[in-house]
């Protein structure tokens, strides 16, 4: 249902009430900490004290000093720039009916007591006042951004307070990746989780995209009390999440670019870089760099949406100097990477009508720089790809259109200033106009003299502030007021801790004792980059004993900046602000003081210090307790899981706790994978120092106290393991880049090398010089594909090496036909370990012998292929080369791309085919069921 009417020359758009909202009764203020049953129990003073702060009662009703310690105000949003942040139509709607416009709001209605005509005038003036602080800008979210935002929203921790999205109040379909679930569970434990979240509903009536992005980048600037913490979002992340939250708006918007500076030899991993500048682009070109006068060492990433209206085959061409890549809908379509002069790559795709995300990556190292991104389509000659970019289309009538800025009437704004002060807005909201803060004219009795039967708590619409409280809230507030009528006692440390954990909803992520913890209904949203760490890697750590565990310095750091100690954990510890959560610090220290026995005091003389640190270094390394197998060290990765850094341990942890923990990790972290170096109270390395647990722990502590300056432990940095062929060939069977997962590398003493792909049964690469570095696979866990070590790497044709062609003009098959049987059969080594590969192809047995031949410094690779078949074989061809240019040089020799040569000796004449690329084929001619071909590669 939407209300749309015209008044005062402005189109007013009323609130669109989504399905599920109860229209009859107003929704009561929703406070996260209030939701659990235990809080809402009858006459619960603690619940009332929470509400006194969260509903801002104490902004008007000053508490006495002892009461103030128990109550903490949730400051209302600072309105200094609200005009740029919130749409004027929303401001108007909110002022007219706060609880109707934003169900669950903690903002009271302060104008309800005015007669209707007067009320409208006051609201109008207030809107003009607020709109005088700025006006919003408009932009539409992008599809890819909204999809990323859907993932981020559900990953970084938004769900803990705001629940999964879509929620029942938002009334729109999810962008890709959102997970269903309403976040409501019966909360019987009474203290944890998001049994009742704070769903965000539809945000597009309130925020524009740029406004929401700005807010997400620093919520504390607008809402300083930290109930919504600062998530330390990167600018791109803020935009992505905002795009997701506003994805009921149209999801198309041209093209955006991000510009980076740096020195690369190939396209960098853009996810790990921070752009220098980002903006809108209208085409794929280098103007963002050239405009800055930059010609070398930069990179660009373009992201946009293509609109395809005509179905058919599209040819994408990307030409660049240096490297570039083109992605369509997340698939890498063209890879034109590397440092090279202008070169173009192309790829055909069959596309149906619709929207496609497009990403172009580009980098320039030095020399010339050029980027050309074109396409050809059905009935469309070659032209810039930018011509296919989607243009924003406004869907009819589904969401608020862009509003023209409110023209501020200065008289109204001036009157609004008066009303702002008169009606209590200024009691809660800071608003500075013309440099001065508007101060409130409201006078209210102090807290300890309030009568619960009157004022805001009166059952009928309260004045001067109307909070649509539910009965339990009233009762709790009344109970709290009665309790606070006399100076209350101080809170015990543990009680303070619990209250703060409830107030800031720490309990949504963290457990302390049996209090709090992740609600089962949102468990699945806690994800990790290290699934192998189990729950330890994805669920935030327990706060049991944290006052005894973390140093004050570190706690302060976490409160003021958030935490980054667990980068593998996708849920982030946000920044609540030291002023907000500071009271936790002394409470934690006091409450947990005696939880851990004091560690033994160990004095080490100055002369011995070096020996002890050396012992610590030995213990931490790969031949000691192997801490570095799991823990990172001074920015170096570990070989396995990337557990918390060792070099921050002594700043992060208290020494007493460190000693106790090492002896029994499971006691402190149930379910941890961390083993103890001291099983059954004995060290596994009795020969280090005096072999006692205390000394060895001390030694580790002292060593780690050097932090990033500590000498690197053994096993952290490993060098190359170059495999060298002396007088015999060396074989290396492993994952080799360019030759696949079943690759067999062979290095020859002549310093020629090859890689054979035992999956595709083809010679994949040839290269000169160094054979291969085995370090990648032979240190740590050995992940990934290793490149050839040497130079002049020649990649031989992909795809089937052999094929039956009914006639020489038939195109070479892209894949092996399914009726062709193939089998790798192994290899035989000669006296100097040179292999002859054995395989069968479509009934033909092949022996494929490769040997360097020639003379020193002029070695070439000679390949002898012997074919044997029991049945007669016709029309079998081998494809030796695919290139831009293949030129016959006579005597069976061919020059390829003007750069290298291949010579062929075979019974039948090789076939040279030209087309979009040139191909060199050799017919396999059988005589007496045998055939033989000799190929020489000279590169």
């Amino acid at each position, binding site marked *: 249902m939407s209300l749309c009417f015209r008044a005062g020359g402005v189109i007013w758009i009323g609130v669109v009430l989504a399905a599920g909202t109860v229209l009859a009764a107003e929704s009561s203020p929703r406070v996260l900490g209030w939701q659990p049953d235990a809080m809402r129990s009858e006459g619960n003073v603690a619940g009332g004290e929470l509400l006194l702060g969260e509903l801002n009662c104490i902004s008007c009703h000053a508490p006495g000093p002892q009461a103030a310690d128990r109550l903490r105000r949730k400051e209302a949003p600072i309105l200094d720039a609200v005009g740029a942040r919130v749409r004027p139509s929303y401001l108007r709607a909110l002022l007219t009916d706060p609880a109707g416009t934003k169900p669950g709001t903690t903002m009271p209605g302060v104008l309800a007591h005015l007669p209707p005509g007067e009320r409208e005038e006051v609201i109008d003036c207030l809107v003009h006042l607020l709109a005088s602080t700025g006006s919003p800008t408009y932009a539409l979210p992008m599809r890819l951004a909204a999809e990323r935002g859907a993932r981020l929203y559900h990953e970084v921790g938004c769900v803990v307070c705001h629940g999964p999205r879509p929620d029942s109040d938002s009334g729109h379909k999810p962008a890709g990746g959102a997970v269903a679930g309403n976040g409501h569970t019966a909360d019987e434990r009474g203290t944890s989780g998001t049994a009742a979240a704070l769903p965000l509903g539809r945000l597009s009536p309130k925020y524009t995209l740029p406004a929401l992005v700005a807010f997400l980048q620093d919520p504390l600037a607008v809402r300083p009390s930290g109930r919504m913490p600062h998530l330390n979002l990167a600018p791109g992340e803020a935009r992505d999440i905002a795009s997701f939250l506003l994805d009921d708006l149209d999801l198309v918007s041209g093209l955006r670019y991000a510009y980076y500076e740096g020195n690369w030899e190939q396209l960098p991993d853009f996810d790990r870089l921070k752009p220098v500048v980002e903006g809108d682009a209208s085409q794929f070109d280098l103007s963002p760099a050239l405009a800055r006068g930059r010609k070398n060492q930069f990179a660009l990433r373009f992201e946009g949406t293509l609109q395809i209206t005509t179905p058919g085959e599209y040819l994408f061409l990307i030409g660049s100097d240096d490297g570039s890549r083109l992605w369509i809908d997340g698939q890498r379509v063209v890879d034109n990477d590397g440092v090279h002069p202008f070169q173009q790559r192309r790829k055909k795709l069959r596309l149906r009508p619709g929207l496609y995300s497009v990403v172009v990556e580009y980098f320039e190292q030095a020399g010339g720089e050029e980027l050309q991104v074109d396409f050809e389509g059905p009935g469309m000659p070659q032209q810039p790809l930018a011509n296919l970019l989607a243009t924003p289309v406004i869907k009819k009538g589904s969401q608020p259109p862009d509003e023209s800025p409110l023209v501020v009437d200065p008289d109204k704004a001036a009157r609004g200033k008066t009303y702002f002060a008169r009606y209590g807005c200024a009691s809660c909201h800071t608003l500075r106009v013309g440099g001065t803060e508007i101060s409130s004219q409201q006078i209210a009795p102090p807290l300890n003299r309030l009568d619960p039967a009157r004022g805001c708590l009166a059952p009928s619409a309260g004045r001067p502030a109307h909070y649509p409280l539910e009965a339990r809230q009233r009762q709790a507030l009344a109970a709290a007021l009665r309790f606070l009528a006399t100076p209350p006692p101080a809170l015990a440390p543990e009680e303070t801790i619990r209250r703060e954990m409830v107030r800031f909803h720490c309990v949504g992520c963290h457990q302390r004792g049996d209090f709090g913890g992740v609600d089962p209904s949102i468990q699945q949203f806690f994800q990790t980059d290290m699934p192998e760490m189990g*729950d330890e890697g994805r669920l935030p750590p327990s706060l049991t004993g944290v006052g005894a565990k973390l140093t004050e310095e570190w706690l302060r750091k976490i409160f003021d900046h958030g935490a980054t100690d667990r980068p593998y954990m996708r849920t982030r510890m946000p920044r609540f602000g030291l002023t907000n959560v500071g009271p936790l610090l002394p409470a934690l220290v006091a409450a947990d003081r005696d939880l851990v026995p004091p560690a033994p005091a160990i004095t080490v003389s100055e002369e011995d210090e070096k020996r002890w640190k050396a012992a610590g270094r030995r213990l931490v390394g790969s031949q000691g307790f192997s801490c570095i197998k799991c823990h990172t060290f001074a920015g170096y990765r570990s070989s396995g899981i990337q557990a918390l850094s060792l070099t921050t341990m002594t700043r992060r942890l208290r020494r007493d706790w460190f000693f106790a923990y090492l002896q029994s990790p499971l006691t402190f972290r149930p379910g941890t994978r961390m083993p103890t170096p001291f099983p059954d109270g004995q060290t596994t390395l009795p020969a280090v120092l005096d072999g006692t647990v205390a000394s060895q722990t001390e030694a580790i502590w002292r060593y780690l106290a050097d932090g990033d300056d500590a000498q690197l432990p053994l096993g952290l940095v490993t060098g190359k393991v170059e495999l060298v062929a002396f007088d015999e060939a060396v074989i290396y069977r492993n994952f080799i880049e360019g030759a696949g997962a079943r690759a067999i590398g062979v290095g020859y003493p002549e310093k020629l090398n090859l890689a054979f792909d035992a999956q595709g049964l083809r010679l994949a690469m040839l290269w000169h010089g160094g054979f291969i570095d085995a370090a990648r696979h032979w240190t740590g866990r050995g992940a990934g594909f290793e490149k050839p070590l040497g130079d002049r790497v020649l990649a031989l044709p992909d795809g089937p090496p052999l094929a039956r062609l009914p006639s020489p003009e038939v195109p070479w098959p892209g894949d092996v036909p399914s009726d062709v049987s193939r089998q790798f059969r*192994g290899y035989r080594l000669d006296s100097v370990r040179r292999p002859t590969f054995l395989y069968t192809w479509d009934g033909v047995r092949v022996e494929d012998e490769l040997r360097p031949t020639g003379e020193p410094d002029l070695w070439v690779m000679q390949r002898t292929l012997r074919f044997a078949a029991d049945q007669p074989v016709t029309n079998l061809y081998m494809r030796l080369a695919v290139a831009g240019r293949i030129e016959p040089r006579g005597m069976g020799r061919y020059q390829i791309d003007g750069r290298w040569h291949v010579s062929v000796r075979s019974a039948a004449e090789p076939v040279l085919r030209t087309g979009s690329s040139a191909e060199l084929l050799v017919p396999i001619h059988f005589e007496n069921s045998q055939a033989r071909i000799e190929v020489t590669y000279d590169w």
Partner: protein
Amino acid sequence: MTGSCPSTLSAMRSGWMSMALGLAALAVALGVPLVGMAQIAPVPEARTPEDDYYRLIRFPLSEQLVLEVGALEMLPDGKLAVATRRGEIYFVDQPLAEDPAQASFHRFASGLHEVLGLAWRDGWLYCVQRCEVTRLRDEDGDGRADLFETVADGWGVSGDYHEYAFGSKFDREGNLWVVLCLTGSFSSEALYRGWCLRITPDGKVIPTCSGLRSPGGIGANAAGDMFYTDNQGPWNGACSLKWLRPGAFLGHPIGNRWYEVAGEVMGPRPKDPQSGSRMMVEAAKIPQLEPPAVYFPYSKMGQSASGIACDLSGGKFGPFTEQLFVGDQTHSTVMRVYLEKVQGHYQGACFPFRAGFGSGSLALQFAPDGSLFVGGTNRGWGSRGPQPYALERVVWTGKTPFEVLRMEARPDGFLLTFTEPVDLATASDKASYRLSTYTYIYQAQYGSPEVDLTQPEIVQIACSPDGQQVRLVLDAMAVGHVHELHLDGVRSARGQSLLHPVAYYTLNYLPGR
């Protein structure tokens, strides 16, 4: 092309390294002992009670010969074949020498892709590499393999490092069994990841079991039935020993997409288990689901179960004839397993056996003299044993330890058989025992804490006349639970405590009356 004069420091350094490697290569070609090459610091010796019964002989290690043992095999001529993660196969001459420094290492093959299975038959050495079963032979008699024949390669490899392939010895039908780890240990991105395959003598691939996650080893029991170890992770609350019953689904559903191509031999795809349930609850609903035979409770009995070997020495390795020995890579131990069949399914108990191995125990292999070779590596993961790799031999001293020999389930309790007569007073005293039971959540999340704890009471104890058996009667049997039994108070008739006074029995099925 590179020049012939190394001009940079790294080239020079690699030149020296290459020369050293070359010397080492020459040494191994000639089959000389490696004492004298750069040594790896040996494990500091600290005597433990276990040494009285089973002593450890440690092969000296050098930095040049990287013995990251993946598989072991005894050869007919008495040599020990050692295959490594670096794809090398060494033959060890005089592996049973009392002074292991006398053994010499000779490299038979190299350039293979991580060998985790070795089996000899008819003059060929079969090895299971990452992507194929290959058999090797020395054709020209120079002591090195010349022919590398692909026997079978019918499974997928995506290039993920965690896609390990372990191989068994030949079974009674002449088949080799291969167990394939999941991609990344979490998903199944290539053909038959998470499956067990049998390879027939002519190289045919027979899909045999589904539902595997991250195998650490494979081996047969005395009856010729095949088992493997799986590791804690999704759908695996703790490490365990599982029976590779042909046609069974062993618990982790993510590889079940391959039922489409597995054919009739595996039958229909099993229903997916419900996450958050219990193993025996799901086993009752899913007929193909075979529960783990023996759990190794996490952190109490290791954290990374590995290789398996069966004592078929007929008594040369002590009293545990026909029982299984299982390594643990994290704790650097070897554990012992007793199995029985209840309602047609294997289940049983695990006991600590021997600790203190030099590296992460991975491959186990019995020798003809009844000693047990244990090869280890801890590259990529941590282990209590501080060495990067190790080769050790466990030898029975001839002295029989006082241990629980067997723990058998009864409808209302357990029958314990000891290696020697017990002291009746302590053995009949309920206070000598402490029993608790628990199980694991069978769930998609990684691992599980111990849940559903119970503490049954021992209501009756009866000892056999010869004192070698004790019958415990309990007030309740928790079916589907691990029964953790501590026997701290039990003494032998000679007054000794048990060498390892704890046993963990996995009671999936209750024996009938």
